[in-house]
């Protein structure tokens, strides 16, 4: 802090954002000190690398969507085929790597749709209150009371199998969690004094929601999204495994295991590597989410 401040000069970028920079440094340090979170970050960084560059680094790009090289079928892992090949001779390594992009899409679409449904409903329930809240929350409870995967299976059963329908079905069972989270947070923020202050200044309801309540709900939403990404991928894989989601030869990990399990245990690599990919991705997102919760939770700070 200097004593003489030139009050006429426009503040530099650094001055204007000094506090933001400090906050991010604090986040970074908290995160760095959390071994599990760092492991999660590394896994997710690797995952993102595959998402971005996967299709261009794989050895047999034509195998991704299913080619046929019967002469190479069910080869064990080797220098040419790191993860072996499947029953029609496709390179498992290629398909697992390309599957990362599919999985990310699945995760993003499911959490995205869930947020689009859940966050507005949660804010409306928490802010408006009364019978509106009762209605929204009871409907939410009904959805939460049915095991998600079973409900998703039922919905896919009606819509017909396929990756699109699977994502839609999972989104439909996923949003209640966001309603719960956002409603609780809105309820506590609604009585915050700064919201009162905004009301006393004449801010409209929309303004209060978008300027004062929503930004303060962001941290828990971000944490939930990162934790949910892994779970959503796992759900989609489960549906794929049950034959209700992505259909082979689409390079989706669950669908790959679904076919590969017929070849266990002798041709183990066929289902092992897609399974390992699911395991690592889910683990990565969970660890990352845990780490994010640690730094974004104000109680854990300082």
């Amino acid at each position, binding site marked *: *802090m200097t004593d003489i*401040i030139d*009050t006429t000069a426009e*503040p530099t970028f650094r*001055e*204007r*954002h*000094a*506090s933001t920079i400090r*906050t991010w440094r604090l986040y970074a340090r908290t995160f760095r000190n959390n071994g599990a979170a760092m492991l999660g970050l590394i896994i997710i960084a690797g995952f993102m690398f595959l998402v971005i560059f996967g299709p261009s680094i794989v050895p047999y790009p034509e195998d991704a969507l299913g080619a046929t090289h019967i002469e190479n079928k069910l080869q064990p892992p080797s220098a040419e085929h790191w993860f072996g090949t499947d029953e029609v001779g496709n390179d498992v390594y290629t398909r697992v790597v390309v599957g990362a992009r599919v999985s990310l899409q699945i995760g993003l679409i499911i959490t995205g749709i869930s947020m689009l449904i859940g966050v507005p409903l949660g804010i409306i329930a928490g802010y408006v209150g009364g019978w509106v809240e009762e209605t929204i929350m009871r409907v939410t409870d009904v959805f939460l009371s049915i095991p998600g995967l079973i409900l998703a299976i039922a919905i896919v059963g009606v819509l017909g199998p396929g990756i699109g329908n699977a994502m839609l079905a999972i989104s439909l069972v996923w949003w209640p969690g966001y309603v719960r989270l956002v409603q609780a947070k809105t309820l506590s923020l609604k009585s*915050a*004094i*700064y919201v*009162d*202050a*905004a*009301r*006393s*200044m*004449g*801010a409209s309801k929309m*303004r209060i929601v978008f*300027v*004062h309540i929503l*930004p*303060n709900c962001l941290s828990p939403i971000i944490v939930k999204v990162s934790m949910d990404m892994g779970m959503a991928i796992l759900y989609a894989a489960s549906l794929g495994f049950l034959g209700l989601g992505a259909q082979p030869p689409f390079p989706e990990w669950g669908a790959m295991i679904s076919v590969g399990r017929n070849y266990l245990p002798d041709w183990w690599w066929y289902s092992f590597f897609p399974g390992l990919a699911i395991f690592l991705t889910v683990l990565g997102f969970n660890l990352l989410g845990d780490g994010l919760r640690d730094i974004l939770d104000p109680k854990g700070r300082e």
Partner: protein
Amino acid sequence: MLETHDLTVGFPVRADGKKAILTAVNKVNIRIEKGDALGLVGESGSGKSTVGRTILHLNRATGGSVTLDGQDITRLNAADEKVLRRRAQMVFQDPHSALNPRMTIMRSVAEPLILHTKLRGAELREKVGSLLEIVGLQKQFLYRYPHELSGGQKQRVCIARAIALNPELLVLDEPTSALDVSVQAQILEFLKSIQKELDLTYLFISHNLAVIRYVCNRVAVMYLGQIVEQGETEEVFSNPKHPYTKALLEAVPLPEPGQPRRGKPIVGDIPSPLNLPKGCFFNTRCEKAIAGVCDQKPVPNFTTEDGRRVRCVLYDPEMQPQAATAL
């Protein structure tokens, strides 16, 4: 300028599984002239904050009315409401929670200006800068976040925000009780000086009698939703008439040597507003309570010869003989 007529505020609550109405403010009549500073003093549960919040429409009045320059502001349409917001502003008790943690100081202070004026961009920044100057903060605070400021600095920011639209009336709800005494002194001094400079009228809500005495020229003492004594500050403090006012004044420990270690503190707890005593609300704790009188029927306000209003039967002209012995 501002007047309340039998202002009543009730909240629906659930007590022991039954629905009940908690009457936080019970037929309160206050009157603030332009340029006045009226102190509203009372303990927790006295309804003093609710009065301030109701004037600014943060709570709904369930009975009575509030008038500003003769105009009823209890029920307003949207346009009039907007005018009221410009004329009356509020400063809250806890400056930390009164500022949005995700907004820079610049954004917080700019909020009322964005809502009510067309100032934007550089002009807005300039206006906010000059407001911070008025409250004695340097421009470097513009881009800070609330958690980086001390309590006193945050309260200055809140005051800057409240005066941004040049209001006439400021409702100050315990503006210094979350602050340290040396900072409190700065803020009180400052509030007194801007009152003159900006020609403000204050409704100053506090539990701290000394602070009220320092800032306000008139005072109203509240107990369980009612005003029990109202008058010029100096007169009320130097010669309190209602037994509750007396007890309140005696209860304050003074920062000076030679006080008796043991006193005779006022007995009992503040009754629950859901289970109000019969008769005078203070009779359960009052030293001078007259059995058969004070615990029977509600007590109206009496105006004493010197123009003070006191809600106590001791000042009932008809009770004079008994009152004389009790006093």
